[in-house]
């Protein structure tokens, strides 16, 4: 009961502010609504007892990436950006992507309806309050079962970081 109330609360905030984010004209307002969406998503993680994902979402996306977003938005000249027609050239691409995404989501709903409410039977077997501590569980799967993909991802990030540094150096 309480779980579903919390879920719908956060979900409606997430969806509503996502819609507001797309429709706002002012870039900073959009950024604020993106922050709200990300926070609400973090809230859903918490409702699912994934407290580590909750805090990682907040630290990385809200505390890290969004601060940089707002930083950049403030640096660029907003007056020029406001007068331009935004995203006009991407209309058809956007339509195709949106259709593909909704088809995907619809497929998921359809297949989950067929499997008796469970897409992966057995995954939902453990009751939420008897799950292992989320931070430990994530760490175990990252450094044990998925060590190689994890390392590849971190090398990828390192490459991106070095690339950014090299580009910054060239310009200076």
């Amino acid at each position, binding site marked *: *009961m*309480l779980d579903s109330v919390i879920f719908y609360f956060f979900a409606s905030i997430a969806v509503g502010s996502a819609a507001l984010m797309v429709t706002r004209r*002012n870039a*900073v*307002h959009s950024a*604020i609504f993106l*922050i709200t969406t990300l926070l609400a998503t973090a809230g859903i993680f918490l409702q699912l007892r994934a*407290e*580590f994902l*909750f*805090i990682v979402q*907040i*630290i990385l996306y*809200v*505390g*890290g990436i*969004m*601060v*940089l977003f*707002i*930083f950049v938005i*403030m*640096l660029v000249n907003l007056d020029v950006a406001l007068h331009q027609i935004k995203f006009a050239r991407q209309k058809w691409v956007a339509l195709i992507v949106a259709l593909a995404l909704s088809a995907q989501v619809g497929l998921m709903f359809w297949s989950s309806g067929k499997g008796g409410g469970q897409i992966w039977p057995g995954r939902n077997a453990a009751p939420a309050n008897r799950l292992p*501590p*989320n*931070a430990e569980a994530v760490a175990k799967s990252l450094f044990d079962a998925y060590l190689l993909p994890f390392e590849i991802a971190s090398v990828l990030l390192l490459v991106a970081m070095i690339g950014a540094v090299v580009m910054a150096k060239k310009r*200076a």
Partner: protein
Amino acid sequence: MQAAIQATIDFLKLYWAPLVCGVVIVAVLPLIVGYVVLVERKLMADMQARLGPMRVGPHGLLQPIADAVKLLIKEDIIPEDADKLVFWLAPVFSVGAALLAIGGLAFGPAFQIGVNLNIGLLFVVGISALGIFGIVLGGWASNSHYSLMGALRSAAQLVSYETAAGMALVSGLLLAGTLNIKSIVEAQASAGVWFGFLAPVAFFTYLVASIAETNRAPFDLPEAESELVAGYMTEFSGFRWSLYFLAEYTNMIVVASVATTLFLGGWLRPFAGTHWFTLKGLNGLDLLDLLPPLLILAVAAYCILRVPRQPTRVQQVFMLVVAGLCFVVALVLVGPVLLSALKPAMAEAVKPFYAGIHGGFWFIFKVSAYIYFFMWLRFTIPRYRFDQLMRLGWHFLIPLSIINVLLVGLSLIVGSYYHLQGWALLLATTPAAILGLVAALIILGIEQKNRARQEAVAVPDFYAG
């Protein structure tokens, strides 16, 4: 309807204690912050050979209340061209984040709002970092160049120093092996040594980074009054301004509490968990538990000694009242110690009070010491320039903290190889700390060389103001 009421009752049954604690914190914290400000002003006055606030109440003790009233009844000005909604939202965001972060902290073995939060420390650090949005958005919404400049500086500063602080926390967490705040303190109790001794380099890094994160002098560039009027707060007045102020000092309490929990043993007394001078099964170091009441008694005695020197009747009475309050506190502190020493039968029943009261004392004591250190630095070191601040963060603290994580990890591997535990672990971590110091010196040397080269081709930095 019935079901909803039942659900509400069940909810309240489970969560009434955290809710009450939350309300108490929100209600009491502004008062505490007010008095922290008073202490800061008095300290500043003392260091500058002045008296500080003296008019409102004896020794200016009612000054915070007068200030609060003044701030609350001031006219609330919103600039004409400001983005009204964001202007309204920004200070609330700052305060909300700071207050929420307090919820994850544990002020004693018994007093914690987010009880046994598995991600405790991460929660506190992550949520308190959200306060930056209040500053950045407030600066942007004011539609003023000073404010925007302060906000930009603040964002750059926080993002830079968060990395160093995070790495310092990782070093501490390696020692603790858990994120749960209670377990971190318990790990220090079972080790018998505070992690600040095992990872001094990490403690130093966190100390510097936490000053920068709370925008305190010497790193208070976002509100450098000689350059930016008041930085992001320039256009804020009255109540909104006081909200920013509240957020800033609450953040100070939060970082001080994090440092206390991770590096200074939380609510443990000095030498908790060690048994060095045992006699007939009694731990000689337990005598240290008499330290808090004696400290408070000393304060009371000082107050009484000063009574004849007070100029007016009111001040004399006030001093006596303070002394009396100190006596009561000392009595509360000494009570459980004496009871459990004299009547071993009572020891078990008194234990929670014993741990709770003394734990609270030590935690508040350490947090106050940390904040005192902040203030001390503020009045001692002149403000940095913005490029100096950035250089210190990126070129010194971040490399040092990353190297230190590696060193602490290595020393822990060595320690577990030789089965070192507790104080013996110092054998492994001290060489690591010395290596960290050497690394710091090497980084400084490289930095010095680089700076000489850079200053030859200086590029004007337009954030520097």
